């Protein structure tokens, strides 16, 4: 399923890999665009130039050191908390679905949803940032009423693949869900 033509909703290329561990267990990994060195450099240079301009005006070296610390901390915070490297979805038949997203710094956020709580996996439409997009989501059962949906959990929130990719993932999910 490694397809080069898959893009996210902004038209950036994304990588999608599907691993088949057994007929009960699939893992789909969607990796967004890598942190580009160019943009990092551009931002860093921008901040430093600003700092240098401020330094020329104020003649205070604290401005420069401040700018350096600011860029470093900002980069670290961005890498650690915001920049998602890849998101993966591990579906284990009759056990549950595990969502994990790894950040560029290597931090990983994982959550596991048991099969007994999952009502279905569906493709849905939503209004997002002045456009209407498709997204994949898990419908969570209402514990009080097994036929009702208590909440909706969107998948691939940061990579936001387009419909073509979503349909592939959807089919994979449905295959496993149908078995159990």
């Amino acid at each position, binding site marked *: 399923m490694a397809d080069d033509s898959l*893009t996210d*909703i*902004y*038209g950036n290329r994304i990588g999608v890999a599907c691993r088949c561990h057994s007929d009960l267990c699939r893992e789909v990994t969607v990796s967004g665009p890598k942190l580009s060195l160019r943009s990092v450099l551009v931002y860093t240079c921008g901040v430093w130039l600003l700092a240098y301009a401020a330094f020329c005006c104020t003649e205070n070296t604290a401005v420069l050191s401040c700018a350096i610390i600011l860029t470093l901390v900002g980069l670290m915070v961005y890498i650690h908390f915001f920049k998602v490297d890849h998101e993966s979805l591990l579906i284990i038949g009759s056990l549950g679905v595990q969502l994990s997203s790894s950040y560029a710094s290597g931090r990983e956020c994982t959550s596991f949803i048991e099969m007994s709580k999952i009502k*279905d996996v*569906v*493709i*849905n*439409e*939503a*209004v*997002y*940032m*002045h*456009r*209407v*997009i*498709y*997204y994949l989501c898990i*419908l969570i059962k209402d514990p009080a009423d097994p036929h009702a*949906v208590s909440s*909706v959990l*969107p998948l691939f*929130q940061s990579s936001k693949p*387009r*419909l*073509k990719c979503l*349909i592939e993932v*959807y*089919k994979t999910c*449905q295959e496993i869900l149908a078995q159990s």
Partner: protein
Amino acid sequence: CGVLLTTATFAPPTPALVRSHRATARAAGSGRHRICMVSDFFYPNMGGVESHIYQLSQCLVEQGHKVVIATHAYGDRRGVRYLTRGLKVYYLPLQVMYNQSTSTTCFHSLPLLRCVFVRERITVVHAHSSFSAMAHDALFHAKTMGLNTVFTDHSLFGFADVSSVLTNKLLTVSLCDTNHIICVSYTSKENTVLRAGLDPEIVSVIPNAVDPTEFTPDPGRRDDSKITVVVVSRLVYRKGIDLLGGIIPELCAKHPDLCFLIGGEGPKRIVLEEVREKYQLHDRVRLLGALDHKDVRDVLVQGHIFLNTSLTEAFCMAIVEGASCGLQVVSTCVGGIPEVLPDEMVTLCEPTVRSLCDGLEIVIARQRSGSVPSPASIHRRVETLYTWRNVAERTEKVYNRVSGQEVLSLDRRLTRLTSHCGSVAGAIFAFIAVLNYLFLLLLQWLIPDDVIDIAIDGSGPQSCWTQTSSKKGKRKANQIL
């Protein structure tokens, strides 16, 4: 993260289906249109415009057209929903300003509406109601994007005061380059032609309709030991509630067996309450408060006479509904009302207490003598007068005509605006049109059309809405209606 959730779901489309969508991306002229209805007024709001849009869309879907509806978000109801037969409704998050109408800036709604038009591959944009800012915005954007436009006017306007002068100017601007306009009655057509300075040839008269199966008579429900007059309307000045406040004591004094059943809510309720208080009519005048659409029929069938006291009305759906339930109709003779029902089915009066009382007395006397036709026969007659299928067929003709026309290019549009709308307003709106076009170019650069996913059709020739695959959507639709 700002994701707004929707509730409807659908089954997986096969890849072959998706491909076929792409292949027929611009298959206009095949007799099947992809229509986007835009209005601020739609369910869960209730009223004439709302049910017009819904019923018309349903009939068009039945004819094999693809229809989507765009409206603004109502409270929690935002995102995308599906109604019966895969009719898709976009509840877009636009700010509501006054009376359920959104604010207009001519720009801020462009990104969302463009996204809807592109992903649904819309060919005709059909806007409804001149009170709806979103409808005018959509017309403006659709023309910028080179789509054909149709506008339906549901209301009448005067020419006397300052506010109507301003709104008429805006209507002139909005309609001067719209392909076709639909009015609901001949009076409404004259009014619209005068207000917007239009060529009457591009204005069609297509009336509203009533779903006759929803309004069936049930003579067993009414109490024949007395005579009941039913009024169902919003209790506002324009509906002539002040007149009603004069009629009630006059007639109740004369006829001890007369009862009034009044459904609806509004600021003029206080007038009716005061009348009821003063003349001690608590057992004979019942105020039911706001009614759900589904309860209207149950109220109507309890009465013998339907009374309409409106002071202005483009096309009065209420009297058709009343007649469809087999009631005798008494109405004021204003606006398009004389065109609506044949003379033998309605008693028309001047909008004064005296005249309305006289009209009611005639009907009461007729009712007493038993010389009125039976409710069932009246219903059978009304059934043939207005049907949504007829409305849809006539609207379809308008679409066919419109889709053959070319949309004005920007330079011709500017010429039209400046020549047609007066020098000042024309210049201003020509400038706005240019800005809007530039904004569209910017959006197309930021998110090119081919990055926007083509939506899976819920209705139309390639509809994936089938009985088996859409149980959930069906259930949701039933909850909505």
